[in-house]
């Protein structure tokens, strides 16, 4: 589902690489946790996968799409296939909960009926029924992140990338978010989660890939994590 082959990313010419010849293979329906300290290269990896950044060298293939052959106008199409959840939520501030989630459907030209039927179901999955009309400003951090998850999964992507989704949340809300990610994974979505929350990693008992100074230093199934 996700294939990285000796991928490097250097931001400034001649500078230290943020990612140094990383190779990673993620199977469909897998739940992979990417761990590592701040600055280890986790976020860079996520940004490469969403093609927010371009790799300096190496090969990236996601869902059969080779990023080297990707034209600019095809980038939106790629992003529509991947659901992304960000640490800082990235909700549209002038849109209500319903509109934020609806945006993901509206932009691909879904019909109004389709939108009206789908959104209540998705808001139910993330436990936000009754908050449809609220604006992001009126929500708690946990609620905002659940809106972001609803938006990421509403088009039922094959892959969900969650970059530190619990980073800004207290432990209780963090667990709510993680449980939703597990639920989505059970529905058959490949989930790639980055975190440095030891507790979450240890309780999830999933495949853990550890990144340090731009390199993968360990890759173990059902692993725990210690900082």
């Amino acid at each position, binding site marked *: 589902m996700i294939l990285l082959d000796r991928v490097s990313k250097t931001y400034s010419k001649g500078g230290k690489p943020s990612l140094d010849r990383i190779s990673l293979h993620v199977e469909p329906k897998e739940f992979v946790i990417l761990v590592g300290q701040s600055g280890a290269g986790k976020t860079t990896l996520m940004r490469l996968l*969403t*093609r*927010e*950044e*371009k790799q300096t060298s190496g090969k990236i293939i996601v869902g059969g799409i080779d990023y080297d052959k990707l034209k*600019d*106008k095809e*980038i*939106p*199409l*790629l*992003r*529509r*296939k991947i659901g*992304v959840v*960000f640490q800082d939520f*990235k*909700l*549209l*501030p*002038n849109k209500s909960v319903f509109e934020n989630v609806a*945006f*993901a459907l*509206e*932009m691909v*030209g879904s*019909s*109004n009926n389709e939108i009206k039927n789908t959104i209540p179901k998705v808001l139910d999955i993330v436990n936000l029924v009754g908050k449809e009309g609220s604006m992001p400003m009126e929500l708690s951090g946990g609620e905002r992140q659940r809106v972001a998850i609803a*938006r990421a999964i509403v088009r039922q992507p094959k892959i969900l990338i969650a970059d530190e989704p619990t980073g800004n949340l207290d432990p209780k809300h963090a667990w709510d978010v993680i449980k939703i990610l597990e639920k989505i994974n059970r529905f058959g979505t490949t989930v790639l989660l980055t975190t440095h929350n030891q507790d979450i990693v240890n309780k999830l008992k999933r495949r853990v890939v550890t990144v340090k100074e731009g390199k993968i230093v360990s890759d173990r199934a059902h692993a725990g994590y210690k900082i």
Partner: protein
Amino acid sequence: MSGKRKIITFWRVIRTGAINFIRNISLAIAAMAIMVVTLTIVLFSLIINSTFSHTINQITSKIDISVYLNDNVNKAATNKLVAQIKALPNVASVDYLSKAQVLKQYEQQNASNLQLIEAVSETNNPLPATIIIKPVNLNDLNSIKNFLDKPSIVKLESAPTSYSGQEKQAIDRITHATNVLREIGFVAVIIFAVVSVLIIFNTIQMAIFNRRDEIHIMRLLGAGTGYIRGPFIVESIIYGMLAALISILIVNSAFQASSNALQASSLGLLDINYAKNFFYNDFLNLLTAQVGLGIVIGAVSSLIATRRYLKFKTR
């Protein structure tokens, strides 16, 4: 994308633009206020310039060249001369006034001055028959003068034409001055227009800069360029349209107010009545042009302003 989806998307873009306009109303009011001020200045400068050039035209239309004929020039020779002058390229019209007609005109002009009238009479008429030439272009009076200065023509003249000596200098000076004034007016309108466009462009760019994160988020979610940009363009078009309408209303109320305060008055070179007529006679054209300008500036500015936030990284 299928045709049906395209239509849905098109309506969504317009709807979203309109909704965004209302939700960002404080930003919209600030942006429109600046647009109203600049568009009003452009409109005023256009009206002032037109009025100004009308006044100049009134002055220059009074300029003509008079050819004073010898009393012994017969009718055939006169007709021939008139025909020759008419054939010149820079001549708009030619009028022939006989000695009697010139006398009559003289008497009318000096009706209040009996002494001057008594000095001349039907039997003792010193005034020459006159050919009055109206030129097309004041800048090219010499082409007419060259013809009139030919020895064969000078022979027919009782005195040098009105376009010679000191009079020529005066006319040339007026022509030069009016040329300069016209150019200044034209350049002023252009400068105001260009500055306005720049200010409006900058205003819209600032408005969009404030919301660059939104564009960035939409981009990350995989929204297409047109779908992200569309609502911004719609919003800016609404800005432009409303600002243009308000500026027209402001000029309109300025004229309404001035009609009471300055009824039928002229402020030096500025003929308020003419300006008013210009505004109301060409109201529809001005309205269309102004709203069109507002829409075009709005659309183009937002198109350019969103560009940089929509780019993908290529390295």
